[in-house]
């Protein structure tokens, strides 16, 4: 039994090494003064300096974060409304249909979503740029938020709502004082899920960027096509750090909300 346990750990370690190896390799060579990805000649921070002095890149970083924040906030609001609507639908059949329509959007390939958005935007005359990227990010994030929030709603006991009604709460009170506080962890989870999806989406964004507006993943792709410059490695390393910071931030927020949620119930 005990040795079984050990082998499990070894297996876990191997899997993690395989998963993280490419990223470590990439970051390792971002310090290479040689300029290529095969011979490590010496340690240098030149690539990071090059990245830091690139104003266009910083504009793109700001764009990416702005898009991510705005699209995930808006899609969280829309998604919560959608989840509530699905929750309140009486007919089982209708509920399944709505859920299925929601899930189709999640499993359908990004390329198809991106291409259809490109066609739609050019047809109705929206200039490619900030608006088109924002709209499409909202669109592919909403189903994710719905899927994150719905289980929370379903696990909520309906007696809670009945009790609130008994005690004289109106519709609005029930929503803001009972339902929303209960599903808050789900809302945050949905928000952060949408945020990460938006931050690293490539396929959809690739189609709808234009007029000089670009996001980080698309920019990295087009720079990588131009040949092997290690400033791309440096940029990827910075992006990786940002993702780690986000994950840690999410961890702390979810910890805190779990604790305060318990405190609230006890009172």
């Amino acid at each position, binding site marked *: 039994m005990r040795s079984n346990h050990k082998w499990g750990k070894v297996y876990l370690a191997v899997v993690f090494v395989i998963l993280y190896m490419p990223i470590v390799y990439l970051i390792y060579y971002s310090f290479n003064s040689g300029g290529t990805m*095969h011979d490590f000649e010496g340690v240098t921070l030149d690539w990071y300096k090059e990245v830091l002095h690139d*104003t*266009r890149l*910083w*504009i793109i970083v*700001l*764009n990416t*974060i*702005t898009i991510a*924040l*705005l699209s*995930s*906030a808006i899609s*969280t*609001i829309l998604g919560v409304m959608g989840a509530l609507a699905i929750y309140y639908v009486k007919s089982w059949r209708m509920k399944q249909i709505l859920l299925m329509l929601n899930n189709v959007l999640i499993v359908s390939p990004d390329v198809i979503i991106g291409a259809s958005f*490109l066609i739609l*935007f*050019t047809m109705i005359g*929206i*200039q*490619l740029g900030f608006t088109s990227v924002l709209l499409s990010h909202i669109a592919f994030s909403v189903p994710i938020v719905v899927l994150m929030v719905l289980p929370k709603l379903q696990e909520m006991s309906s007696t809670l709502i009945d009790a609130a009604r008994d005690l004289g709460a109106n519709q609005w009170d029930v929503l*803001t*004082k009972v339902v*929303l*506080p209960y599903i*808050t962890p789900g*809302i*945050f989870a949905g*928000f952060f899920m949408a945020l990460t999806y938006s931050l690293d989406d490539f396929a959809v964004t690739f189609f709808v960027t*234009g*007029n*000089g507006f670009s996001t980080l993943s698309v920019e990295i792709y*087009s720079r990588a*096509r*131009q*040949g*092997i410059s290690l400033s791309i490695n440096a940029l990827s390393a910075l992006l990786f750090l940002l993702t780690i910071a986000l994950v840690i931030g999410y961890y702390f927020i979810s910890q805190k*909300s779990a604790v305060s949620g318990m405190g609230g119930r006890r009172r």
Partner: protein
Amino acid sequence: MKKLTIFFAAVFGAALLLYYVSLALNRTEGYVGKNTLTVYNWGDYIDPALIKKFEKQTGIKVIYQTFDSNEAMMAKIAQGGATFDVAVPSEYAISKMKEDGLLIPLDHSKLPNLKYINPRFLNLSFDPGNRYSVPYFWGTVGIVYNPGMLGGKKITSWNDLWDPDLRNQILLVDGAREVIGMGLNSLHYSLNDTNKEHLKEAKEKLDRLVPNVKAIVGDEIKMLLANEEAAIGVVWSGDAAEIIAENDKLDYVVPKEGSNLWFDNMVIPKTAKNIEGAHKFINFMLDPKNAAQNAEYVGYSTPNKKALDYMPKEITEDKRFYPDFDSIGNLEVYKNLGKRMLAYYNELFLQFKMHRK
């Protein structure tokens, strides 16, 4: 509820702040407003110092965007919705864009530097009278090989590639017309051949090459050859120059049966907003000194006759990249074969790619 309200207010606040900062940055960098010029070019296909110089000279801010295939570029331009003031398609794409009405005619009175272009590269079949396009770079398709890895053997013709000793040694560039063209050339047919019998014959000949082919790859072919992963590669001359600059053990040859002569050209697509600026940019790039600087940076062959005077002799006298047109018999420019024939070429290429060893 309160927590949610505060959280979302904070998120929206932060987003607005970031948006404002990026707008301000855009403004100080000059990316906003009318005085910009969007150049749509292949990746790493211009000396960035020249863009800076152009911005300084004219006060126009250049937004440089890149594409990786003629097809992707044409799709984005045909789709509309985005501004591109200058684009750099290859010659066969130009005839197609012309047919589809995607190009704006050039005003030659605004391009006085056109006179420096070698007349050999003007008035070609894909754009008579250069109404829509001005040549940017030109080159050939040929063979890069590593004499060291081949035991000193020399490659001079397409047919040398069928040598059974070269098993698993050849990398091919992933282009239907290049590879089928290689088959046609090795049989001494024209690159623009539309006779299906000839094409089938070429494909059958290519199938016999399969044991020698290691892989069919895209841009990474440059890296693979420079790192000596394979001894032979079929590439465009510009890529060859880059590979040789990285690893000087390699050599380039234009096969004696003949090969393709290609051009990349500057055009003004119909999506252009700053047509005045676009002419200025094209004229700027035609200036002999600028063209020379650009050619040295990119490593492709410039069609600018006067620019050659400003470049080192070892480049301009290198017969591999500035060949005597008389010594190489049969350099052909791709013609637009029409949708049907092109689909047939692609079909044959696909069959070749699927052919099992």
